[in-house]
């Protein structure tokens, strides 16, 4: 079954998008992303002043994998999990925390912001996003059609990318 990891569409998505922008504004962080635990990016924002981010696919994959590995470590010690992860380099820091059990909120910041500030506003953002998700639960999901046209189109794309020899 095709299901979104989080119900991020319509008004809910707009609210969450605005919350990510607000997080960047208040925390002075560079980038904010919501990713699912498989490593797919669900939403992202960049501060206007921030440089172009690195590949978001790579970032999401690595953070999700890191989170999974940390979860396995936590279980070795009888913990349910480590709810947040902090990575700090000379210039860049990354703060990740659980969101709605199915996703992570990642905030990437530099020396122009302090970790404490990032943590404070990230936690507030998580709470606000969870409220938005809860309020948007009954929002009807967009309908997608996977009819013969869709099948033919995807087959054509596969042939184009991989060749049409059988």
């Amino acid at each position, binding site marked *: *079954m*095709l*299901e*979104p*990891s989080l119900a*991020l*569409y*319509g008004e809910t*998505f707009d609210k969450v*998008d605005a919350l990510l922008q607000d997080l960047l504004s208040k925390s002075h962080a560079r980038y904010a992303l919501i990713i*699912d*635990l*498989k*490593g*797919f*990016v*669900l*939403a992202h924002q960049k501060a206007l002043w921030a440089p172009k981010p690195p*590949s978001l*696919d*790579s970032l999401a*994959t*690595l953070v999700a*994998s890191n989170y*999974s*590995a940390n979860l*396995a470590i936590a279980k070795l010690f009888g913990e349910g999990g480590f709810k947040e992860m902090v990575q700090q380099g000379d210039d860049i820091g990354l703060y990740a925390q659980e969101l709605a059990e199915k996703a992570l909120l990642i905030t990437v910041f530099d020396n122009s912001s302090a970790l404490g500030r990032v943590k404070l506003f990230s936690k507030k953002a998580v709470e606000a996003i969870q409220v938005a998700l809860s309020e948007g639960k009954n929002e009807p*999901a*967009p309908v*997608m*059609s*996977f009819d013969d*046209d*869709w*099948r033919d*189109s*995807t*087959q054509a*794309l*596969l042939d*184009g*990318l*991989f*060749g049409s*020899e059988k």
Partner: protein
Amino acid sequence: MSTINFAAREINFKIVYYGCGLSGKTTNIKKLYENIPAGAKGEMVSLATEDERTLFFDFLPLDLGKVNGFKTRFHLYTVPGQVFYNSSRKLILRGVDGVVFVADSGPSRLRANAESLRNLRENMAEYNLKLGEIPFVIQVNKRDLPDALPMDMLKKVLDPTAKVPMFEAVASKFEGVKEPLKAVSQLVLEKLAQKA
């Protein structure tokens, strides 16, 4: 389970390359990265040891293109094949939509292939998944070895019921690399269409 992002208008799938150590999983991904056009691929990520053995995973995002306004993307992963990295293999299998099993044709690797397949079934069971229920193909790699095991022998061990699509390959020469990926991608897309 595939991930749909309505806001970004993307459908994302996860394909995992599985198999015993040195069977050619990373070689598959590297050759795909070298040969797929720039617009259809993202950056490749490899977490490996100093001697180039996969430590955690390799990752390559592929962009199939747009259908009905939605980008269809595949995220390819390899697992570390060495026996003692089982914890990592379990983590990488999370949310898998399709599997390419890379078998080694080397004469001394028959048991390792069988063990890796057994390990795959065990790890999938932890996610309540059965191998027969998700898109699954087998690539029999290293067919250029002078003492490569006969295909019949490998088929009997890896797919005794003869139900799984099987592809011969020499991944190091980019032969037989696209075909299993295309096949598993077709199965993944077909499964999505059937279940939606």
